[in-house]
């Protein structure tokens, strides 16, 4: 069979993903994690003096939750069930760091654990910082903050 024809056939015969089921699960799981985030945010709005500090504390708390659920071997099961519902929230970002560190723990603390913490999270941080810097610069200029 001609390779081109075969590639076409592979596409035609690929198992059909159950988009409705997967998106529903992602919606429910992502929604629940966001709702928990809202409760945490509410709490910090009460005790923190500024909204910015409440945001910072909320992100950190959610990251803590994600890290602990990873260590207990729960977060990968959430991901298997809810897909993007587990991957897209900031808890999934924490999961990517802790899971990498746990996997490479056996290769040593310096050559393994600590150097592999950023294997998956690294690009997210770099893009957040670089894009955030550029957009922050433009926005500050637009607001006339450098005058």
């Amino acid at each position, binding site marked *: 069979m001609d390779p081109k024809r075969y590639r076409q056939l592979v596409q035609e015969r690929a198992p059909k993903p159950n*988009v409705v089921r*997967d*998106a529903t*699960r*992602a*919606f429910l799981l992502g*929604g629940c*994690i*966001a*709702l*928990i*985030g*809202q409760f*945490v*945010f*509410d709490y910090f709005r009460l005790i923190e003096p500024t909204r910015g500090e409440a945001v910072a*504390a*909320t*992100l*950190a708390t*959610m*990251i*803590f939750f994600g*890290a*602990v659920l*990873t*260590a207990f071997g729960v977060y990968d099961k959430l991901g298997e069930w*809810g*897909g*993007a*519902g587990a*991957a*897209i929230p*900031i808890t*999934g*970002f*924490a999961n990517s760091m*802790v899971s990498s*560190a*746990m996997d490479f*723990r056996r290769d040593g*603390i310096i050559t393994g*654990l600590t150097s592999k*913490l950023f294997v998956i*999270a690294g*690009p*997210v941080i770099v*893009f*957040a910082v670089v*894009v*955030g810097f550029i*957009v*922050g*610069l*433009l*926005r*500050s200029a637009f*607001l006339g*903050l*450098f005058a």
Partner: protein
Amino acid sequence: MIYFWAFVIGGLITAASQVVLTYTKLTVAQLLVILVSLGAILNGFGIYDRLIDFAGGGALVPVSGFGSSVVAGVVQEVRRLGWEGLFTGVFELTGLGLAAALVFGFGLALVARPKG
């Protein structure tokens, strides 16, 4: 009402991500990078902050909220310090979470083993 919208907006962002992952060749890593950048850009237009006012955790918890917070921190610090804020502001709101991820990640990886 904020709880309803937190659930719905948070759910919609992740459900839309799921659909994108299903129908495109994008990997989760690529999508995370896109979302975090998108959050930063939307904050630049003053949109993402309004979404956080409206949906709270629903906008804050997806990684796009992380990107948005970087910009919010930069603007806040530029207001306070001038141009130095462009650099110090990057981690103003996100530094707490990043340091937490590093410390908890390090500590937990020391004691926990992958279960598989």
